[in-house]
């Protein structure tokens, strides 16, 4: 679980760390994430931080790379890591993106650092002969992650920024309907902030095509034991349950996630307080 940092680099507003972690690299599938211990020995920071895996390479037995933005003290500490430092990781964690059996056309929609997760998906899709188109967005140009790589990999790449500093001014959901129509997309893959995922799902539902989203809920354990990372998801039986995004996700079928109710316990969820579902389970 302890890996050595191989390289560190800055990518616009983001930091990227590559860590030697053969055990993780070997089992990795697109959409997986890692739990990273921060702060070093005797730190006061107890919980691991979750990061999507951006890239996996065979060097040194297997490396994983993740991309992050400095949000608080944990990511600030990570940003100070240097080559040869050691890092304590667990993973790969979570449910990966399901891939289509047939060579269909997929639109990959990324917001902010969420784009990082999509490149391994694009790789896997292309290996199956799928066509891949990108829609990447962020607040500003320096926060659009991976535009260059998307341009290289994608049949088309559409960029949006809220301030108009790169690509179209606006949000990914503003351009997504056009892209889906133009490329005749068969499926959508998305990763980014929750409101974006809700918007992307709505668009896909409109077009009646499947959409897979990777959500981001606060996590304490990442392995399914702490129950902090739940969100309301509708099951095959039509019942809404508070499911753990770390083990039952982070990848979900978009239309199953009740985005508008995230952060609440919907009254009709299984086991909701005073709910009529008390005996449903």
């Amino acid at each position: 679980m302890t890996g050595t940092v191989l390289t560190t680099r800055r990518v616009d507003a983001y930091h990227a760390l590559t860590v030697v972690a053969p055990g993780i690299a070997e089992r990795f599938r697109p959409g997986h994430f890692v739990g990273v211990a921060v702060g070093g020995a005797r730190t006061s920071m107890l919980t691991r931080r979750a990061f999507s895996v951006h890239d996996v390479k065979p060097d040194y037995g297997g490396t994983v790379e993740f991309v992050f933005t400095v949000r608080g003290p944990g990511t600030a500490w990570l940003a100070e890591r240097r080559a040869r430092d050691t890092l304590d990781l667990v993973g790969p964690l979570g449910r990966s993106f399901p891939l289509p059996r047939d060579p269909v056309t997929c639109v990959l929609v990324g917001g902010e650092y969420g784009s990082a997760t999509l490149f391994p998906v694009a790789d896997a899709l292309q290996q199956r002969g799928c066509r891949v188109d990108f829609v990447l967005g962020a607040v500003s140009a320096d926060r659009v992650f991976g535009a260059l790589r998307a341009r290289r990999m994608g049949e088309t790449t559409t960029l949006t920024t809220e301030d108009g500093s790169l690509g179209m001014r606006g949000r990914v959901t503003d351009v997504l309907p056009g892209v889906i129509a133009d490329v005749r997309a068969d499926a959508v893959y998305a990763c980014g902030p929750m409101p974006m995922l809700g918007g992307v799902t709505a668009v896909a539902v409109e077009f009646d095509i499947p959409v897979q989203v990777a959500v981001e809920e606060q996590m304490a354990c990442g392995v399914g034991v702490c129950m902090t990372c739940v969100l309301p998801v509708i099951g095959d039986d039509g019942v809404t349950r508070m499911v753990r995004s770390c083990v039952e996700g982070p990848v979900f079928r978009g239309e199953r996630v009740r985005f508008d109710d995230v952060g609440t316990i919907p009254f009709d969820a299984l086991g909701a307080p005073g709910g009529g579902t008390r005996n449903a389970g």
Partner: protein
Amino acid sequence: MPVDMRTYLGHVELVNPITTAAGCAASGSELAQFFDLGRIGALTTRSITMAPRAGRPTPRMAETPSGMLNAIGLQGPGVDAFLERELPWLDQRGVKTVVSVAGGTVAEYTALARRLTDAPGVGAVEVNLSCPNIEDRGRVFARDGAASAEVIASVRSVMRYDVPVVAKLSPDVMDIVSVARACVDAGADALSMINNPLGMSIDTEAMRPSLAAVTGGLSGPAIRPLAVRCVWQVHAALPSVPIIGMGGVLTGQDAFELILAGACVVAVGTALFHDPYACLRILRELEELLAARGFHRLADAVGLAHRPPGATTRHRIDLEESSL
């Protein structure tokens, strides 16, 4: 020579003193992918409730210095699903299981206990008393010796005689010893401490409570000094009552601290969130530490820090001589 790590909860033998803390190992199966659950002394379940519960809204967690706050709200499948799926799964794998139960009234605790009576695989029952008593304006049972005793007496009366009943205490009381004594007098075979003290944090950006539930339970190393103190006080007052000690145990040394204070079983909670292998690592570290100090049996270390200041420290030589 390996250390004899066996320990007892009432007359139930555990192969070693390490268990998971209630609510920190979900259904058990989640940890099974990391290690063989049969290698720890016992697995303690989440607190089982009568009905399924969706728990509290998110955010349910906030990190604090050397600790975290949680407000999960006892999310779980309810006793039916527990008995149908989770307990049999554990039983089939031969995992010694401490079933934690939670209720809102004495009647609910009792009904839960009754449901567990004939279920195979119940090694012990731990009564989570840190629940609001809906018949007493939501006052938490654990804060009141009499209310706690009432729950324990009732659960004890319906449980099979050979299944120990463990009362789980909260540190948020004026005098933990009096609550402990009330529970033991009411029939508790063992005590478990500490449950999370109530804490809170505020997000200074949003200028709002960090947790959706406003307050939450504090866990992790930050509270270990409170846990050690509670275990110490209760062991001093009731030296023959087995204690499951917990609160911020991250290492074998931390477990040893609780054992020296008087715990004969040590539960690992928050540490599991950081390290899913924590139980086995802590067990190994504890065993090494005992061996390094010349202990042959874990039992010899339980409560050892209580020996009077004049008494000589047991050390390797002493013990080797005494074992001749």
